[in-house]
């Protein structure tokens, strides 16, 4: 819905930007299109959703062994279906970088227009992504960053540090009058940079209101590990005021452990934003009072941006006539008051 209103709003700006746009597209691979470009582009830039030049997009992501990852692929496919001018080629999800590299090579052989790539390992997929860019294919990097600026045209990222900040700020607001409050944290896989970023943001936000993380345990993003970590935490801390759990998938286990313990003196803040958790928040009779979103729509946004890039359209609502280099998504706090707004993009785990 916002996309449509956005497109109307930008119509005027885009009109002004036509000349600049025509000039700026000279770096795109297909020369014959920029010859007769100016007129159709003016229309296109104003109404981004209108069918344009046919775009073939290759998509590859890690294996869907986690609710969030499964949602990424589902949302991406659903988004591609909305556009009659987009043909999405989805490669089998895999955690084998050797196979994922070969998938990208296949896309290059197929001469797709764009590749939306959520690499299992950003560094390992960098060489082949660079090769795709050199072959004139628009690469959109999603979630896990390549280690070279030449490997992608645009990168879409979540905000792990921001998740921690949002969760910490929310807990601060809820516990404002309790200076000696006990705040616990259930992290994800501890050695991953994303977990470290989340914890850092959380710590900083809590410090801002004079709180600290009293107890911290780490799980492994799975239900089973969440249950184990939470059970240990509840043993270690006899009284808790607030818990932030990094991940809603492991959160299923966390909530099970809490239920088994029969404890009710605290509230829980989730992470990632699964539909389950949002339903709990909405019902209001759960200890889960809020969750912080790590958008599972990144792949879907990747498809949209890839389409815009190939069709040489501008991103609506920006004065800038080129699609930005990096798009970092926001990590909002979902509570009972605003849960309906985020429900449509929540993922089923």
């Amino acid at each position, binding site marked *: 819905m916002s996309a449509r209103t956005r497109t109307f709003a930008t119509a005027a700006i885009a009109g002004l930007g036509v000349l600049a746009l025509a000039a700026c597209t000279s770096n795109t691979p297909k020369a014959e299109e920029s010859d007769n470009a100016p007129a159709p582009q003016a229309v296109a830039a104003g109404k981004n959703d209108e069918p344009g030049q046919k775009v073939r997009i290759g998509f590859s992501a890690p294996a869907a062994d986690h609710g969030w990852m499964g949602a990424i692929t589902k949302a991406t496919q659903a988004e591609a279906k909305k556009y009659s001018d987009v043909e999405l080629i989805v490669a089998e999800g895999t955690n084998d970088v*050797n196979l994922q590299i070969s998938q990208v090579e296949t896309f290059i052989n197929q001469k797709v227009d764009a590749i939306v790539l959520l690499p299992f390992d950003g560094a390992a997929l960098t060489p082949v992504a660079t090769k795709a860019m050199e072959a004139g294919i628009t690469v959109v990097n999603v979630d896990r960053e390549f280690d070279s600026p030449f490997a992608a045209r645009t990168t879409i990222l979540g905000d792990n540090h921001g998740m921690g900040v949002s969760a910490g700020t929310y807990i601060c607001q809820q516990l404002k009058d309790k200076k000696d409050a006990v705040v616990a944290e259930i992290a994800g*896989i501890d050695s991953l940079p994303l977990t470290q970023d989340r914890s850092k943001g959380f710590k900083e936000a809590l410090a801002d209101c004079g709180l600290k993380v009293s107890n911290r345990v780490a799980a492994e993003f799975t239900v089973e590990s969440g249950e184990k970590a939470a059970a240990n935490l509840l043993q270690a801390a006899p009284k808790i005021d607030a818990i932030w759990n990094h991940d809603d998938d492991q959160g299923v286990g966390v909530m099970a452990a809490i239920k088994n313990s029969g404890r009710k003196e605290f509230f829980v803040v989730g992470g990632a934003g699964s539909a389950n958790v949002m339903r709990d928040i909405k019902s209001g009779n759960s200890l889960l009072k809020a969750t912080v979103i790590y958008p599972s729509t990144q792949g879907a946004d990747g498809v949209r941006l890839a389409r815009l890039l190939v069709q040489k359209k501008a991103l609506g609502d920006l004065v800038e006539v080129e699609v930005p280099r990096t798009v970092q998504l926001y990590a909002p706090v979902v509570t009972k008051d605003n849960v309906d707004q985020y429900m449509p993009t929540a993922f089923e785990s």
Partner: protein
Amino acid sequence: MTVEDGARPPEQTASTQATVTPPAAQRSTGLMHSGVGRNLGLVVALVLLCIVGVITAGHTFATGANVLTILRLAAVIGVVSIGMTFVITGGGIDLSVGAMVALASVWATTLATQQLASDLHWIFMVTTALVVGAACGLVNGLLIAYGKVVPFIATLAMLAAARGLAEIISDRKTQIITVNSFVDFFGGSLLGVPVLVWIFLLVAAAGWVLLNRTTFGRRTFAVGGNSEAARLAGIKVQRHTVALYVLAGLCCGIAAVMLMARTTTGSSTHGQLYELDAIAAVVIGGTLLSGGRGTIVGTVFGVLIFTTLNNVFTLNNLSISAQSVAKGAIIVIAVLLQQRLAARATSQ
């Protein structure tokens, strides 16, 4: 020599290499046919796959670039599978291949190793990977041959331990290779064929010669077929078993080097589930899981069938879950096809 007479498989696989069966050796005609039959099933399966590929995605499938894409993907898992063929033919199993690939890749890309490599020569990274792989194989072999631990358990332990050690060494971070000469050499091409594919061809050829044309190979068949008989025939079964696992480890070291070149990284997550891919390729190829019969050519076909399958799926944009179902079905079909053809060939 009794062992030689008893070990028919070498002859069998040798004859399949020649493709045309000479009608001379009357005694073993049936066996030779069965050998041809087994590989014929694989050829039929691969040709069928290729026909499907050409029909459904001809414009991209039947191109040189696509063939190279398939071969590059096949190369890494192919080298692992060659090593696996030896272990399985010798009556064992190695579940730790993926973990050994990961450990070798991590060890060969540590800061210290890379420093040494950039100061002197990238050959140090290669040697490190090979030594680490072979050393893991040695541990496997010693545990199995002298410690009398069942291969399944010993290599399962190695699977856990090697990946764990890889995680400790790398701190679960991806180690990027900064030695450009290494990446340039292994990422390059020779006579239009990627170096990785050359390595696969070399390893396969060396493996074929070793299994079918040397005493080592004949002993492998003997040990796998009946280790007690092999012992009575004077073969040092324990020492031979150790050698087989070292060979598998060495192949993992080579595969690690190849994967490092392909990804320009070393990581504890490399080589996930390679043990299953390799075992599947070996068994589809016609090597008996119980040992005593093995074929390198079959394994190469097995690997090619898997990777071609994958390529055809990707080219045709098939749904992710349907791909897995089809994969399982094709494994069964390939094996059934082999058995039927082999049976028909023997009954003639």
